[in-house]
């Protein structure tokens, strides 16, 4: 039903939503880049946490999809830094990972992520739907919760 209310298109009063995908594995990043491009988002890619932080500052994304296990700086560290910075802490973060432990999910959520998605459990389209769902909720209220 959300598909019928496309809030991300450029034809609306809002500008095109920017999705920052922080993902080190090219298999994954290519796949998610495709699906979000198909779904009409502007997609920015980052290969690790540090690059992710850099791209966050430069592109001011609407939403960040964040992998946990990455070289240089992992997802949780990046999440902490995002939430510590007043400029970036309002950007909703969805953890997108293959670490299936429940504790990992709880940790991420307690540090300010809005959702914890296990990649293998969902088709890319389902993930895009979830992102849309989250995004629509925040854009409506205009006050994305920070933590």
């Amino acid at each position, binding site marked *: 039903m959300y598909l019928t209310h496309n809030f991300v298109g450029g034809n609306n009063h809002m500008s095109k939503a920017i999705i920052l995908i922080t993902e080190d594995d090219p298999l994954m990043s290519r796949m998610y880049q*495709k699906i979000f491009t198909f779904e009409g988002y502007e997609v920015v890619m980052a290969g690790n946490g540090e690059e992710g932080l850099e791209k966050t500052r430069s592109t001011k994304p609407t939403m960040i999809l964040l992998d946990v296990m990455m070289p240089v700086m992992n997802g949780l560290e990046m999440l902490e830094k995002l939430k510590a910075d007043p400029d970036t802490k309002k950007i909703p973060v969805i953890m997108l990972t*293959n670490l299936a432990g429940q504790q990992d999910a709880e940790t991420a959520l307690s540090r300010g992520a809005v959702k914890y998605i296990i990649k293998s459990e969902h088709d890319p389209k389902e993930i895009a739907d979830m992102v849309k769902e989250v995004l629509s909720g925040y854009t409506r209220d205009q006050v994305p919760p920070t933590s």
Partner: protein
Amino acid sequence: MQSKEKKITNSLVAVASLVEAVVILGWYGHHAGLSLQFTWRWFALPLIGSLFVAIGCLILMLKRVPTRSGPFYWFMLLLVSNIGLTTMLLLEVLSATPQAEAFFQSLLVITWLPVAVLLLLFTVSYLERKSIALNPFTWGMLLSTFMLLVFVVGASNITENHIPAQSRLAWWGYANPPVRSDELVYWWIGILGLVSLILLVRAYRRETGRIAKKQLRIFVTAVAQYMIIAVTFDIVLRKVLHGNLPPMTFIYVTLMAVIIEYGIVKYGLFVISPTSLSGQILQDLSEAVVGINANYEIEFANSGVDIIFGRSMSTLYGRHINVLLGEDIMSHIRDTIEGPERMYTFEDVTVRQPHKLVDVSLTTSRVFVNGNTSGGYIFVFQNITELKKKSIELAHEKLNVERKVIERTRELHEERAKLHASIESLTLGFAFVSRDGKVLVQNHTLNRLLGIDEPFPDIASLARKMHSKAIERYCSSVLKPNASAAQHELAYEGKVLRVFVTSVTAEGGTTPIGSAMLIEDITEMKVLDRSRDEFFSIASHELRTPLTAIRGNSSMLLTYYHALFKDKAALEITEDIYKSSLRLIGIVNDFLDVSRLEQKRMAYNLAPFSLDKVIEEVIYEMKGVIREKNLTIVFDGKTLGKVPEVWADENKVKQVIYNLVGNASKFTENGTITLQAKQDGGKLKTYITDSGVGIPLELRNLLFHKFQQASGSIVTRDTTRGTGLGLYISKLMIEDMGGAIILEHSEVGKGSTFSFTLPIATIKQKNTQHLAQTVIDIRTGLQKKE
């Protein structure tokens, strides 16, 4: 003798004496045809005084001397005689007629004569210190002596026809009849007194006891003054003055009595004399003592001979010693004892009694008579049968003890060897530390673990070597009351050591004697632990990532590039790729779950929640499958909101319900699946019933096991229906959360009912919602195990 009997005896003696005196007096007076008339003379005064002194002495003896022995009685009789003597003398002095005077004088003789006899008897009994009881024999002797004296006096009266003591009448102013000297009686009495004196003086010279010597001196004094005065007055002066002399007897007799009594009262009466007893002792010895003369003839044998040889002593006198010992033994003894020594001892002599053999030891002693060696021998036999038996027993016992000691020592050595070998073969480091911190035992493993070449003497030096006081603290902490064992982990030179310390208490003791310490190198284990953690993350991440790519890309192909699949086969291939990826992901998930569960590494986020809601969610999410298989799913809505909340991990419970409903749907075609939740005691029980194929009886026990599907064999395994891990995982999860999962019932062709229980959340649990405290390693993103 009992004191009551003593009193009776005393009074009887007194009464008998009195009666006898009166009878004799009356009888004698009657025959003499006397008229007794008295007059006063001043000479009566000293006599009255003497009488009082004599009676006083008697009373004093009774009151002050408790020893009722022979000497006591003889002395008492002596005192009584003295009273009689003094009384008769007094009556004589007070007589008014010569006949009366003569009569009393004759009576005086009767009381005077026994004094010397009694003195001798007293002396003898005192020196012998033998309790001469007043037996008929003694009485007879006394009476005979007395009668003899009376007979002497009486005979002289008859033959001479006058009273011997009339010699004294002249002194009182009467006509002096022709006098016949009663010298015989005087000499008799004098000799008796002299014998007493000689005996006492001899005893005095021999006596070694200080007190006895003092007492004897007093007695000698007493008898000596008696003798001197008696001889002076009654023999010498009477002769010189021709009988013209006042009677002085009462003075020296009373004086003697007073002096003797002084000696008795001052020092008491001795009753036991070793010299007098020695004969008795020798006689009563349990050792046999035999005296033989130079010809080996028995001259003496004591009662011990009876006991040891079983022969009466009386039959032995004068017989050869061979009758006791036998010729063989005796000839051997004879050869020896005629040697140069005075005494010989034979330890092992066997004596044959009528019915038994007796082991004796024999000591022989040569008797010297006037320096002559041929005086014979004294043989002393001692029964050593018991002693010998005891010594044999003792020797046995000693042997036994020695054997036991050897055995125990060997056992101890073996034990020690075993213990040593055990300790040395331990792959763990071992040390035993005494209470005061000394290291008593340590094995090589310990030295190797700690990289030490030499054994360390105490725990303090070990602690210094390790640069950590920790190990010292561990050892002392277990010695405290109520602490028995403790386990610690210690980092040392890049190793991780696990230190297990326990207090050691000796059997039967209460205070620990020290602590035993086991040290294990767990570095490798720690590394393995860490590797296992990493395996989980790698497995979950690295396996899933490519699978996710396959799943995601095939799904995108199917979603966005439908136009590509003009060829139906190409579409099918792509769909199969997609389905395979799904199944593989499922398998990976199951495997990871099983590993976690089996290693008890599964984390549960326990919290109170409503099971209804979870069931509703599962049903909602499974709608697609249900519809696909044309199934009806029923949840007993009546319970909604009415069943209590459970205390469990919501996600895990959801996984279990997924699994059970999934299984039900797999095995059911065109049927119904029913879910129902009911309170059952402190648990909430959830039933999942299907109208499917059912499970054959023989396969039911395969349920809930790893990789088991309810199918006959591995070959017939339905590979399209998952890994067979679902029920196994569900079972482990439910059990971990405090519940149980079972197959309620099943009927082939009609369906099955599974159920699981979960604990109902308590009020306390509801109020204090448990929050999992976990720490995530920031570098790996993995949760740390605390």
